[in-house]
Structure formats: C-alpha cells, structure tokens
C-alpha cells in the first residue's frame, strides 16, 4: 500500500526512532556526506546524490568485535553479539541492491555468518529514491534504477513537497503502524505508481555508457590477457575502492590482548593490499599489482556471478569511479574489456 509522509513528519519519525535505537543517516561533516550515526533529524542531510560510505559500514562494520577471551592460566571465550537495534535512513537504490549481494555470500552456503545475520535482523532499512543521480552513477548498467527498492523495509520517493512511501516488509509495516502511526497518510495508488515509474525510468547518463551484458562469459577467457598488465600498472595499491564499495566483503580476523585478556575482531581487508594473500612462509600467490587488480575485477564480474548465480558483485554506485585516485574503476574496466574484446 502506498502512503505519503510530509517532510516534517518524516523528521519527527526519525527523531522518535533515534530515541531508542541507533539512527544512521547521511550527514555532512567537513564537506563529506557519509552515512553516520546521528542523534536527531537535524543532523541529517536530505540533499545529496550519494553518501561517501555505504550501508556496509553498519551491517558489516569495518571492525567488529567477535569474542572476548581471558587467557590467564585457563581459557574462556565469550561470544559478543551485536544486539543493538539500528535504523538506517536515506539509503540509495545501489546500497539497497548491495544488501542482497552481500546476503548471498555471508548468509549463503554451508556456514551462515551469525554476526551479519543479527545485524540484518536488527536493522531497519529506509530507502530514498534518487532524484539526481551523480555523473559517476551507473546502477542501470546492472538492471537497477534510481527507484530500485532492493532490500528496503520502507522505500521513500521524494514527490514534490512530500515523500511517497511504501512499506515493503513486515518490519517496514511495523514501522508505519507503530512509531509512524498518524504520520503517514494514504496515497492515491495510481498517482503513486506513476511517481515510482518515473523514478524507475529516470535517466542515468553514465549507466548508458557502460554495458555489462555478457562480460562474465567474456572474462572466462580473459584471464591471461595483456590488458591486466597494462591497466594494473597505474594502481597504487591502496584500499579505497574496496573500502568504499558496498559489496566488497573480504575480511581478516585479528586479536588484541592486554594482560591476559583481549578481544578478537573481524576487520575489513582489501585484496589490493600486497600482504593480503601473503602466507607465513613468505609465499604470495598474488605477488604483484597485476594479479591483485585482476583478482578484484574477476571476482566482481566473473567469479561471483559464476558462484552465486547471475548477478554481478557491483551495483553501479559509482563510489570507486569517483574516489579511485588513479581512475582505475570497474566501469572503465567493463568498457575496456568489451573494447579490447571488440578489437581482438
């Protein structure tokens, strides 16, 4: 069912939510708009194309406590569970799409990641459709669009001076009927659907330039191509692309102990770092930038779709396009590989 909510009511709702759970929202600080914990709606930026960091920070945080241990003489281990409730507001369609891709890795297979599952359960996702896609946005390349609701519990679409709202899950309906009671008004279904359609069909110029169709198959035979040599030379081996990416999920486990007790953490790691695959013996299967750069793009465009069926491990959020210091980003690689292929 479609509803509308006035901006003031939305702010009231967010303020209300901030009282009993962690409110995460786009907020501008020193010129950077990123998703961060805020105390009230007053801190929220409502006018932004996309946030510098993604929802990943809160479903799969950069550092996460896994367990506490005591090692004085004996050993005891206590699992730490991320029990806090959180609500994330203002998620763009690319981030909402990324959640499904992360779910496949972290919740799929023989082992399910309990920490991630708990955070998923405890987090209410409120999406906000894109009014003005940035120059670097290319979500439409992957079949998403500026109105894509993905994993959202509630999806909002700015419609003139109000927001069109749709509750998509039980969690979302609980929000509308619970804390949101009296703040939402029923919307005209037909007019609402028209708004949704307009967002879904919104032009994403960069998306038109990048055609991903069939790249997984092309890459099957592209592993040994000279291209990886050429392109990887300019990589500086920083972790920017992987850390701002909403779908990169590689991590490491690390301990910190002081005086017989300590914590084990799970922290993001980056396949672009030289030490990433270096073994204790000193052997490193991916010793140079070439192997590392190739790994990152093969993973996103070939290994992942082959392993998890279909979708690519990229949602076209454009963060790596905007932030890679040397302009080595996935949209460029897709274009290049197809270009190289076309000439070959």
């Amino acid at each position, binding site marked *: 069912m479609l509803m509308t909510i006035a901006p003031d009511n939305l702010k009231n709702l967010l303020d209300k939510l901030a009282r009993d759970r962690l409110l995460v929202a786009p907020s501008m600080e020193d010129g950077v708009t990123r998703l961060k914990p805020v*105390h009230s709606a007053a801190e929220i930026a409502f006018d932004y194309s996309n946030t510098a960091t993604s929802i990943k920070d809160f479903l799969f945080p950069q550092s996460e406590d896994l367990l506490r241990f005591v090692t004085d003489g004996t050993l005891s281990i206590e699992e730490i569970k991320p029990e806090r409730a959180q609500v994330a507001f203002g998620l763009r369609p690319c981030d909402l799409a990324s959640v499904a891709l992360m779910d496949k890795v972290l919740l799929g297979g023989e082992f399910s990641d309990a920490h991630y599952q708990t955070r998923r359960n405890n987090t209410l996702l409120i999406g906000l459709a894109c009014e003005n896609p940035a120059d670097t946005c290319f979500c439409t390349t992957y079949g998403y669009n500026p109105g894509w609701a993905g994993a959202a519990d509630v999806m909002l679409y700015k419609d003139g001076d109000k927001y069109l709202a749709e509750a998509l899950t039980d969690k979302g309906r609980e929000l509308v009927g619970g804390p949101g009671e009296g703040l939402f008004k029923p919307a005209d279904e037909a007019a609402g659907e028209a708004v949704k359609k307009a967002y879904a069909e919104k032009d994403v110029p960069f998306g038109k330039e990048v055609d991903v169709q069939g790249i997984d198959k092309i890459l099957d035979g592209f592993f040994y191509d000279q291209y990886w040599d050429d392109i990887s030379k300019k990589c500086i081996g920083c972790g920017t692309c992987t850390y701002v990416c909403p779908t990169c999920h590689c991590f490491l486990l690390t301990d910190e102990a002081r005086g017989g007790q*300590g914590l084990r953490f799970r922290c993001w790691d980056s396949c672009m770092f030289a030490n990433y695959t270096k073994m204790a013996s000193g052997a490193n299967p991916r010793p140079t930038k070439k192997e590392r750069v190739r790994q990152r793009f093969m993973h996103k465009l070939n290994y992942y779709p082959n392993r998890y069926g279909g979708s690519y491990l990229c949602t076209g959020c454009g963060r790596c396009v905007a932030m890679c210091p040397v302009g080595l980003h996935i949209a460029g690689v897709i274009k290049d590989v197809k270009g190289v292929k076309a000439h070959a």
Partner: protein
Amino acid sequence: MSVNEKAAQAAGAATGPSTVAAATPAPEGWEPKIIGFACNWCTYAGADLAGTSRIQYPPNIRVIRVPCSGRINPQFVVRAFQRGADGVLVAGCHPGDCHYSTGNYFARRRYLLATRFIEYLGVEPERLEVRWISGSEGQKFADTVRELTEKIRALGPQRRLRETL
C-alpha cells in the same frame, strides 16, 4: 551516555564533540600514571642516585631504561599515551654530555618538533615533559617527577589518545 552514543561508540564512529576528553571527571582513587623514558647513562643514574640518596618522589612514574635519549622515538610517547599513560617524561644527558657524543642533540631537535606536534593534536602540553637530567642530578630527577605528577593530577586522566579495548 545515551543508548545512541554507546552504540555509536561501539560502531567505532565519532560521537561528536560532546564526548571529548576532559569532560569526564577523574574516577575515585585515580592516580596519575607516568611513563618515564630514561637514558641509561645519565637520567637512569640520576634516578638511581635519587633512590640511594633517599630523596622522596611520587611513585607514579614507571621508568623504562633506554640506551640514549636519541633512541626514544616519539612513537613510543604516543604509544604510552595510547596504552594508558597520563603523562610521559623523556629524559637524557645534558647537551654535550651524551655517551654517544651526539644522540641527545638529535633527540633535542626531534622533541622540539614532537612536543609541539603532539600538543597540536589536542594533548595538553603539560603531559609530555622533556628534561636533561644528569647522573649527579638525583634531586632534579625527583623534583621533575614531583612537578610532573602534580601537573597531571591537576589535569586528570589522559583520554585523548587512549585506546578502548
């Protein structure tokens, strides 16, 4: 702290200026913890002399003996603050007296810069003390430790660079 702030801190996120240092009073029974980096040839001997001469000074300092003040990487100072020191004393031979001739001259340049830099990052300047204390200056060592302890007692616990585990 509100639920929000606790949670925000748990997320490793900034909690805004409201939680910055100083605001929280020192806990009951708190005693300043001071790490003293002392060069082996002068200051350590000076500290020893203070002891054998039975000069009283506060027990708040934990001395770490190093070969030379030139060995004391400012990283050590930041690490000490990170791991719970409320104050740090860096001490070595007087200029001209270095056992290795010139180590303390390099240390002097380094700490002229480092004291200012650490202050610039928001650590109260009183928390880092650099002093030349010779092997015969047992009294100076004791006085330095006493003054430093009192200054830090007045400031309260150092939370600026302290890690939370």
